[in-house]
């Protein structure tokens, strides 16, 4: 049974990802958009992926000088859940990022 309630932080992640639902996003990009620290963002991404709301993959090409990055985007279920979810409250999304 899919969950119907999300924490404010999860709502901000869903909203950020749903803004451009088809695009694969980097973790740091999501952190900047949501203002969440990595220690908050990644557990949320893990739980969303476990719930089948987010899919993840590695960059296909090996860039020079740095490791491949992990990419995330909402699944079809995730897009539906994000559309149904209430909008995140101010103070949880759009806050200055931890590493801008």
């Amino acid at each position, binding site marked *: 049974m899919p969950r119907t309630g*999300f924490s404010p932080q999860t709502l901000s992640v869903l909203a950020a990802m749903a803004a451009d639902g088809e695009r694969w996003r980097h973790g740091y990009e999501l952190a900047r958009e949501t203002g969440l620290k990595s*220690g908050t963002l990644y557990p949320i991404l893990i739980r969303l992926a476990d719930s089948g709301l987010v899919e993840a993959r590695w960059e296909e090409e090996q860039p020079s000088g*740095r490791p491949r990055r*992990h990419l995330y985007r909402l699944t079809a279920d995730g897009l539906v859940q994000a559309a149904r979810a209430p909008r995140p409250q101010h103070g949880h999304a759009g806050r200055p990022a931890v590493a801008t």
Partner: protein
Amino acid sequence: MTTAVAAFVMLAGRLLPTGRREWVEALVAESRAVPDGYRRLAWLLGSLPILVKEVLRMRLTGNPWLPRIAMVAAVLAVAVLTVANMIRYPAITSGFGTVIYSTLLVVVLAVDLGLTVLLTRAGSPAVRYGMLAGLVTAALWTLGTPAGNKFHVSAPWLDALYNAGLVAVFTVPLCVAGWFVARRTGALEQGVLTGIMTGAYAAVANLIGGLILVIALPGRVPFDSDVLRHHQTPADILAGNVGEDLVVFIGLLLLWPMLGALLGTLGGALGAAPRTRPATL
């Protein structure tokens, strides 16, 4: 500094199974996009709570072999302690119910072990949460029952409070565990299974505790308050401990899981019910 932290995080991440290790590797790889210095260090340190939580979850509670090994150890402990009691008190095997209760003991323990293996293989959380709740229940019940009877009080309100506490210890964890797992999984059946397994594990742990107490403190741990009140000779107390009361302990192997099914259903129904207020995902 950040390089050393990144190396440490990657090394610690190797403790995790592949599916979880990938997330730690992702976080470390992403740190290269974060401006160097304090910000990158803060980004990397964010992995520590994840590491701690995942290591605890996957290694201590999520590992299917740990509850299986614990259950096998419990069965062996029951066998050894039962034999020790039979050697120490040969009279306990002389009753007409010995065959019935011995068979019941073997069958129920085999079922408990089989359920543990099947449910862990299916990835059900009922085993690990049931085991945790069952151990807490058994610890309180096993120690609370003889303690209350040993220090029997005459004040009616205190006696009532004590008995209410015992009833709560006997029942509430089954319901709460079922509620908790159903709430986490959103599945009523997982709540029911957790209630059953909580009762099963509580009964096994309680049996082990009883067998130990009978061996360790045979004349001073009267489980049955009626024995203490009306038959106060050491011989009567001992007979009560190793005879009637152990039969009750074995009977609980059946009663407690059945009660767990009932209370797990109740708690599971509450936990699986849709919620209206936001909750942590």
